[in-house]
Every structure is written in C-alpha cells, then in structure tokens.
C-alpha cells in the first residue's frame, strides 16, 4: 500500500483502479486533458497542478478512475509531456509503470507552423511525420515544411 501512505501522492486522492499520469509539466496539463479527450468522458477524474517536483519544477498529475490507455493513444501526449509516467492501478496497487514515447506519425494534434500551409486555410486534419524525436522535428504531410519544438502549437 505504498501509494496511499506516500503523503505527496495523497495531495490528489487515490484511485482504486485506473491510470495515474504523473510528471506532466504544469503548463501543459490542460493540453494533455484535451489531447486525451478527458474533458469528454464520464469517468471520475481528479487532477492536481503546480505540485512541487524535485525533477520537473512544477508538475501536474491526473488520476482517471476505470480508464486504461492503449500505447498509441497515450503516446499522443508525448509532444507536450515528454517525461510523463503512467502508473496503472488495480486494487490500489501499481501493477504496471509505463513511459511515453514520441510516435512516428502525428495526426490531428499539432498545428503546422507554416502560415502558407493549406492546413491553416481549410478544414484539413493536420498530419506530420516525425523526422527527429530529439530535438523534435515534424514534417508536414501537406506543405512538407518542418515544425520544431519551439514553434510547436497544439490544436
């Protein structure tokens, strides 16, 4: 019962079963919520933000009861929370730990930085090929221009 007895974890109440996403940068918490569609599901969700973290400065944490993610889904948050760690909880116990990794293709998350790109003119779902994971570089499927971390904007 390590998780429950840890006073830091208790800042956000424990869940019986579900997923805890930890080490989200506080500034991107709401982007993570949006990317995962957590604002549209009925599960019980608690989150904390601006929590002290030894490694990340101010971090955020999300606990989603009764929800488990596929790798492809969870990797979508890698763009905004590259160091996020997942704890899969069953019966109040961490049964699995996972990290996120940047996927090879990114659809419908990022905005192309090229103001002359068709995706910024018409209702086109953005699509990128990840040409470099570190430093991050996304090549637009349409205009073929590179969007890097600095100019990355989440839709």
């Amino acid at each position, binding site marked *: 019962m390590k998780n429950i007895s840890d006073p830091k974890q208790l800042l956000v109440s424990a869940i019986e079963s579900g997923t805890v996403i930890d080490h989200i940068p506080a500034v991107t918490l709401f982007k993570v919520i949006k990317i995962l569609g957590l604002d549209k599901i009925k599960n019980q969700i608690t989150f904390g933000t601006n929590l002290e973290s030894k490694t990340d400065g101010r971090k955020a944490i999300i606990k989603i009861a009764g929800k488990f993610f596929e790798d492809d889904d969870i990797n979508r948050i890698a763009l905004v929370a590259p160091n996020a760690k997942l704890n899969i909880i069953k019966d109040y116990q961490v049964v699995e730990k996972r990290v996120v990794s940047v996927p090879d293709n990114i659809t419908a998350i990022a905005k192309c930085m090229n103001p002359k790109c068709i995706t910024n003119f018409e209702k086109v779902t953005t699509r990128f090929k990840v040409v470099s994971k570190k430093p991050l570089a996304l090549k*637009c499927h349409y205009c073929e221009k590179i969007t890097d971390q600095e100019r990355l904007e989440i839709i």
Partner: protein
Amino acid sequence: MKTRSLVSIDDLSTEEIKKILKLAAEFEKKPVQDILNGKVVATLFFEPSTRTRLSFESAVNKLGGKVIGFADSSTSSVSKGETLNDTIRTVNNYVDLIVMRHPIEGSARYASEISTVPVINAGDGANQHPTQTLLDLYSILKTQGTLDHLNICMVGDLKYGRTVHSLLMAMSRWNTSFNFVAPEELKMPDEYKLYLDNLGLKYHETADLQEVINQADIIYMTRVQKERFSDPIEYEKVKNAYVLHDHMLADTRPGMKILHPLPRVNEINPDVDANTKAYYFEQALNGVYTRQAIICTLLGLK
C-alpha cells in the same frame, strides 16, 4: 481504385522516373497522337503561370484531348469564396485529370486526397513543382546521354528557388556532384547540404561563378530577385556577379548545356542565346513531351 497523382518528385521511384523520361523521348519522336481522344483535362490555375499552363495545354491538345479550366482565380468561383475542397469535388466530375497551380503550400497534396481523378501539381506555392523537375531531368538526360556522375553548377537564388531544391533532390539519386554559386544572402539552405552529406555526395560552395564554370556538365541558372534582399545595397553589389555572358563560356566543357526554368530577366545575357551551349528554349519544348508522358502515365494510357 485509388487514382495516382503527381504531387512531389519524391512520390516517384527511380524506376518510374526513368519510365517517364523514356516515354517523353517517344513523344518527342511522335508528338502528335490520338491517345487522349475523348478525354478532358482541367487546368485550374489559381495563380497565373502562363508558361506552365500553355505547356500543359499544348501537351493535351497534341494528343487529341480537350482542355477546360481557368487561368486566374479571379475568373473562377474562388472569387466568390468557394473552398478548394468544393472546387475539386465539383471539377472532378467533369474531367479525367486535373492540373492545378495554387499559391497555398500543400494544396496539391490535399486536392489529390479529395479528387476522384488524378491530380498533377503544377506548383503549390514555394513547395513543389514536379513536372518542372522531370523536364529538367529529361533535358539533362537528352543532352548528356546519361544522368550518372554529372557535375551540376547551380547559380543564383539557391535559397528560395524551389526548382533547384527539387532538382538537387532528384539528381542526388544519380551520384551527382554539385557546385553552388550564390551570394551570401541566397546560399543553399543547410537542410539540402545535410541531405547530400548523408548520401556522401560532393558539393562545393562559392560566390565566384568563374571559379567552377569549367567543371560543369550542366549550368542551371536562376533569377536573383531584388525583393529577396533585406538590404538593397547588397543587391546592387551582387546583381552583376551572377550574370552569364558568352565570353565566360570559352573554356567550358564541349558538351556543357545551360538550363534555366524561365522566365529569365537579365541573368543570362542575350549574347549567350546564339551559343550552342544555350539550351533553355529547347528545355521549354522538352516540357511539352515530358508533360505528355506524365499525363499518359497517370491515366494509365501508356
């Protein structure tokens, strides 16, 4: 069945490029044929490009096809606010193939995903113009007899010129060595040099055309545009350094040819035109044969 479009030169395998060039040579021998009889091709030019449009229309007409379309978006429903999506979904009902020129980058890829008929990208902003690249390749192959191990000297605006970027990417399949001749402000971007580095291909950068001109099998000239310079004084300093004159060609290789995507302004002095090494007008004619080959390939007629 999924239709085949031509949006970017990278869409084509080396084998497919070779096939198109071979077919272009056949059309050069016999440019007037009845292959497109009963077919209708749309030329949708959302921004004017008279040269490219006429070249496509000539290609279709010589093969017995009909052309419909517009030369400028002010004369189309776009001026009423129609989206590209709606234009393509409408026009693809009327035609067998769409040739599209559009100022927005990525518009051709988007159109090719919507359209029920093949789309040929005739230029999407600063992005791609693959038929220009193919006609450049055809001109190089025709004049040099091969695409392998050539020395290509690119001159002028190497920073913004999409024709030089596409040509560089395409020619890198054939062990080309490059000389890049450009003023400081218009040098070849690092991403293309990195691309060549990764392939282990040789290139040399210089601001002095005379230094490398005698090594060239092909000199590819481009326009140095005044509006590209942040400092007009800088433009005045370099504008004459990238002009080709007939006397500069004295010691160039005998089989060397000068290419230019046209229109030229002053970067090739008219005294070069009479030199047998001047090839830019024949290059434009090659564009018709190459486009005939591309259209027939996409329609599966050859």
